[in-house]
């Protein structure tokens, strides 16, 4: 696609939009860090910058509007996703609602495609940029999720085992852990995680938000999160307007009780980050 494709480039690009300050001392850091040790952070974004999160991006528009020029089943069997080439530019992965099968007790078939979109929205509004742009659309009469295809990405199994992911990309995996807790992902594993440009890409999020047992890639209870991730979460907590918009969008996709549980988890995370500085445990709701 003509504009910069997912994942976005260096985080420093975002810092040019906002001011820079130094992080407040978290409770866990008191007595251990001086001003010189604390990382610079981005000040809360202006409403103008935040509005980019609430509006449809050009990539989303492309995914939603461009006619497909070819459609090719990717895997085996009738339930496989499809590679969708879009007119003029762009490739995507299409997951039709009709292909969804029974995989969990609480997340039922017929809803996965909405959850894919919901997960993308959460990633977008939090500023995590973990999920490739994802929309819902009809293709040849079939409704489903359409997600931007990430070119040249590698799954964990394609990465030399000597470079352990947990050591090589600890901040990315901690952010992924937090994200998967927030969306209550019941299906994160090596098969639905990609890396590109040292950034994690969280794909296959259709089994999220329901009250199934979470399956997380790695877990970091009690560990200090990367400052950038903490700032993003705190910034979202201070952005009431954005929270209301996200709530409305999620209510179009998920049952009300799941949306309530989602915000309850955010409150738990907020409380723990403010009081203790780390996240120890999060309950579904």
């Amino acid at each position, binding site marked *: 696609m003509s504009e910069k494709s997912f994942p976005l480039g260096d985080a420093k690009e975002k810092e040019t939009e906002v001011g820079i300050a130094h992080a407040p001392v978290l409770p866990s850091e008191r007595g251990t860090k001086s001003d010189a040790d604390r990382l610079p952070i981005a000040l809360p974004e202006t409403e103008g910058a935040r509005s980019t999160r609430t509006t449809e991006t050009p990539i989303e528009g492309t995914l939603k509007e461009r006619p497909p020029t*070819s459609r090719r089943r990717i*895997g085996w069997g009738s339930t496989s996703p499809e590679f969708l080439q879009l007119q003029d530019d762009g490739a995507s992965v299409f997951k039709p609602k009709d292909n969804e099968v029974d995989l969990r007790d609480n997340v039922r078939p017929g809803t996965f495609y909405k959850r894919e979109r919901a997960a993308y929205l959460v990633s977008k509004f939090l500023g995590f940029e973990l999920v490739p742009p994802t929309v819902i659309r009809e293709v040849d009469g079939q409704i489903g999720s359409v997600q931007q295809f990430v070119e040249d990405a590698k799954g*964990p*199994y394609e990465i030399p*085992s000597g470079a352990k992911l947990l050591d090589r990309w600890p901040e990315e995996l901690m952010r992924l852990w937090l994200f998967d807790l927030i969306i209550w992902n019941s299906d994160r*594993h090596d*098969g639905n995680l990609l890396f590109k440009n040292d950034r994690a890409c969280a794909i296959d999020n259709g089994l999220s938000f329901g009250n199934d047992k979470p399956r997380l890639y790695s877990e970091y209870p009690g560990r200090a999160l990367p400052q950038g991730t903490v700032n993003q979460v705190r910034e979202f907590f201070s952005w009431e307007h954005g929270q209301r918009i996200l709530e409305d969008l999620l209510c179009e996709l998920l049952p009300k009780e799941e949306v309530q549980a989602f915000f309850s988890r955010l409150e738990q995370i907020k409380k723990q980050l403010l009081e203790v500085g780390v996240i120890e445990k999060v309950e579904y709701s």
Partner: protein
Amino acid sequence: MHVEIYKLQNDGSQRMIASCRLAGEAAECSGEEPFVTNLMVEGIRAHADGVPLFPAEGRRFLEELKYFFTSGYMNASDVLSDE
């Protein structure tokens, strides 16, 4: 019996990167590195309960591959006969 594992290419085509077949009671995988070594060492997780599965578990490992690699970027075939 065997399972073929494919990687989705940028143009939408699929390239086979590994094949796992039953050798006695266990599965053996061959193909591109480091994918094969990682798969053999790390195993996969069963789709129903997340229980780790390794090639030593043979048939079950083969049967679960198609549920593990479902993202579209990596895809595993059904269990195929060796004919």
